[in-house]
């Protein structure tokens, strides 16, 4: 980029239209603007900043020349503008920022929001206007705002220790674009392309689809087995249906035989029943006979027994309350209670003994009476004995009669059906056949239900697979994109790392070289990871960090800026000649400096002045006359254009070219 000219109109103390054309030739690439203190040197630099970036750092915000403002009548409008013409990438741009100021009825002057206009010249020579919303962006592409302060340089500031030097260096060296690309793809960055693609991949869906395919294969095998079994069962049912008809035919054709066989079967059952019945009735008879047989058999004896008992003397009752021991006492003393001598009274003792026998505990009379009663009970007990026996025996006979009849009948029936088929066997088979048929039909229904369920499962799984397949296709696409993204990242990262390493080395070499040219002492510089310059001095035992001074800082800053510009210029040349697939965005830049030598001594000014025009494509110096005196000797040959600021008052300056360079 080269600045062709700047036009200033009513901007601060520059009253009216001021035009400064800058030298753009390669041999005489220096333009010097001379000015005293407070003449408007810094305002000139600020004009660049306002036009390009709408930035100013004036203490008072009014841009309109105060004399113009003071003379404005009510409701009068005046404009302020700065227009810069520059060449960037072989294209001419005209950038113009304008602001209108209006005087109110009360006499106050107020500015509007301002207007930016960017035009460029077509190859045909016509000027083409950039869309208003693209203006700012276009300027930023030409000279990024972050780099502006390095090229519109205020010599009193220490640039190297200010702000994000790293970002500035990267931007200047054109590797910031690659860095942005690297960041854009960096897998470790949450918002990078690779991270986003990774998040979009639905890994689970691929695994699920494999699982689902396995499931569907299993279901299909299951279905095939059910189909096979279904056909088998159908055949089995056919077989049993045929057999059912055959058996029904056999049974029907032998119905007469069947009836007889049924009768025989019934007779067999009856006989079994009667035989059991016979056993029961026999048992009953034995029980009935056995139970009271002794009492029944005794019947003929009772009459005789009664005669014996009735004729017995023991029938008499004993003397009430008399005791057997009392009788023993009377007999022992031999004297009755009536006073008679018992030993002399014949038969008396026998009589007394009889009476004693009627007394407890030898009271036989009571036992006889009990016995008689029991005999009577037993006689009554066996009154029905015979009839019970007869009845039981009758049942045996009847049972036997029936049994005999059944046996005869079964014998006859058996003779009738001898040699005939066993219809019952076929009937039984038919019954079993029907049972199996029912089971088989149930089985067939069950298999059919399972087949239906299987088909339904297969349909569901297929639908699920289709759904997941869409995701799977997307995954395949994303994986492909990821492969590309990873390759891009790898490529750019390698190139970026290499480029940054080279930049650092080159910058280090360049700054050291330039510092050596500018500085007349023994110090040297180093660059840390943040591209900050560290000044070091050799005390004989190695280099160590030293304190600095304003003059030393000026040299350091010049070395740094010149190093950057030099590197950018060399890079631009390399890029133009390069066939590398990754294009570095670099462009040679001008240096516009305000009071650059104010803190430097004459030797340093001389040294810097020698270096500056060699390094930069274009140098624009806004300096005090006294400083230019030191620089002129070193830079004079490179001087293309020389201007001077003429200060008429505190609010009015103009710029005029001095023809005699």
């Amino acid at each position, binding site marked *: 980029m080269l600045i062709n000219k700047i036009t200033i109109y009513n901007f601060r103390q520059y009253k009216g239209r001021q035009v400064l054309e800058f030298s753009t030739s390669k041999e005489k690439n220096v333009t010097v603007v001379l000015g005293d203190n407070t003449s408007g040197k810094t305002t000139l630099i600020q004009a660049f900043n306002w036009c390009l970036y709408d930035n100013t750092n004036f203490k008072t915000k009014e841009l309109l020349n105060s004399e113009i403002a003071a003379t404005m009548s009510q409701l009068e409008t005046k404009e302020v503008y700065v227009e810069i013409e520059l060449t960037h990438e072989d294209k001419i741009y005209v950038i113009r920022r304008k602001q209108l100021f209006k005087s109110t009825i009360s006499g106050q002057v107020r500015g509007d929001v301002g207007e930016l206009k960017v035009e460029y010249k077509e190859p045909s020579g016509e000027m083409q206007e950039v869309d208003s919303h693209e203006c700012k962006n276009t300027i930023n592409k030409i000279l990024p705002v972050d780099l502006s302060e390095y090229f519109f340089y205020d010599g009193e500031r220490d640039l190297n220790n200010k702000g994000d030097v790293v970002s500035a260096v990267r931007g200047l060296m054109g590797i910031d674009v690659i860095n942005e690309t690297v960041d854009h793809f960096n897998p470790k960055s949450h918002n990078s392309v690779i991270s986003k693609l990774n998040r979009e991949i639905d890994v689970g869906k691929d695994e699920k689809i494999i699982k689902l395919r396995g499931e569907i294969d299993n279901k299909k095998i299951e279905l095939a087995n059910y189909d096979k079994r279904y056909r088998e069962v159908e055949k089995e049912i056919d077989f049993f249906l045929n057999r059912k008809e055959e058996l029904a035919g056999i049974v029907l054709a032998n119905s007469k035989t069947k009836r007889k066989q049924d009768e025989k079967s019934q007779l067999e059952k009856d006989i079994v029943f009667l035989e059991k019945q016979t056993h029961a009735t*026999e048992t009953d*008879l*034995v*029980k009935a*006979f*056995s*139970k009271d*047989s*002794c*009492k*029944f*058999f*005794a*019947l*003929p*004896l009772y009459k*005789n*027994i009664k*005669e*014996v*008992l009735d*004729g*017995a*003397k*023991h029938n008499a009752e004993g003397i009430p309350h008399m005791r057997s021991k009392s009788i023993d006492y009377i007999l022992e003393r031999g004297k009755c209670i009536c006073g008679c001598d018992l030993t002399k009274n014949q038969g008396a003792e026998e009589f007394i003994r009889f009476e004693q026998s009627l007394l407890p505990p*030898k009271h*036989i009379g009571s*036992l*006889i009476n009990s*016995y008689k009663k*029991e005999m009577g009970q037993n006689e009554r007990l066996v009154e029905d*004995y*015979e009839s019970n*026996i*007869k009845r039981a*025996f009758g049942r*045996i006979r009847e049972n*036997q009669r029936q049994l005999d009849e059944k046996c005869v009948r079964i014998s006859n029936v058996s003779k009738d059906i001898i040699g005939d088929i066993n219809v019952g066997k076929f009937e039984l088979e038919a019954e079993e056949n029907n049972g199996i048929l029912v089971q088989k039909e149930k089985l067939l229904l069950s298999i059919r239900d399972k087949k239906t369920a299987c088909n339904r499962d297969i349909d569901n799984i297929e639908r699920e697979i289709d759904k997941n397949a869409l995701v799977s296709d997307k995954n395949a696409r994303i994986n492909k994109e990821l492969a590309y993204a990873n390759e891009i990242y790898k490529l750019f990262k390698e190139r970026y790392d290499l480029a940054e390493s080279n930049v650092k080395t080159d910058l280090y070499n360049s700054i050291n070289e330039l510092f050596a040219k500018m500085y007349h002492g023994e110090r040297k510089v180093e660059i840390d990871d943040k591209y900050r310059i560290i000044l070091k001095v050799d005390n004989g035992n190695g280099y160590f960090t030293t304190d600095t001074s304003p003059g030393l800082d000026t040299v350091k800053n010049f070395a740094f800026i010149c190093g950057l510009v030099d590197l950018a210029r060399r890079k631009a040349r390399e890029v133009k000649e390069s066939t590398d697939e990754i294009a570095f965005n670099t462009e040679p830049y001008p240096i516009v400096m305000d009071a650059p030598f104010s803190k430097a001594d004459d030797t340093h000014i001389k040294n810097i002045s020698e270096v500056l025009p060699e390094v930069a494509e274009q140098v624009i110096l806004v300096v005090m006359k006294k400083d230019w005196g030191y620089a002129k000797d070193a830079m004079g040959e490179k001087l293309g254009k020389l201007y001077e600021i003429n200060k008429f008052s505190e609010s009015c300056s103009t710029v005029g070219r001095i023809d005699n360079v």
Partner: protein
Amino acid sequence: MFRDDILIKGKHASYLKFLSKKTEQNDSKQNVAAVFENNIDVYKAAIVMGLVKGVKKGVDSTNDDSTRMFAGKVIKEEFDLEYLFQMCMLIDNSTDLSNDEKIERAFKGKDAVDFKENLNLFNSYARGGIEWLYEEFIDGADTKAEYLTKIYDIVSNYRDENC
């Protein structure tokens, strides 16, 4: 009085077993009449039949057979057995006793002077009765049905023949 085992020996034991269903129950292969439920039922009926028919038999030793009615079973039938003992003592005329003497030996039981002889007398009628019953049942009968018919015949004709 009847609180001990009753032992029957010889052929009377064999006859008793022939008449008792217990024999059949103990060994189903035995071809017996089995017309009485238990051995003691045979014994009781035999005592009466011995008295009715006036048949007494001594202890037999023609074979080694024997059967024992255990005390437990005997005690359960003690009342009937005592009743039958008294009946036997009242009926028997073999010793030419007076009615009072018959009553004495019948109701004094163990206290009677000749109780042991009385008991032997009682058992001799039992053996006589067993023999009579056996002969009655085997007379013209060889099958189960015939033995049962014998029951019917004996009971049906009993009053006519004995009362």
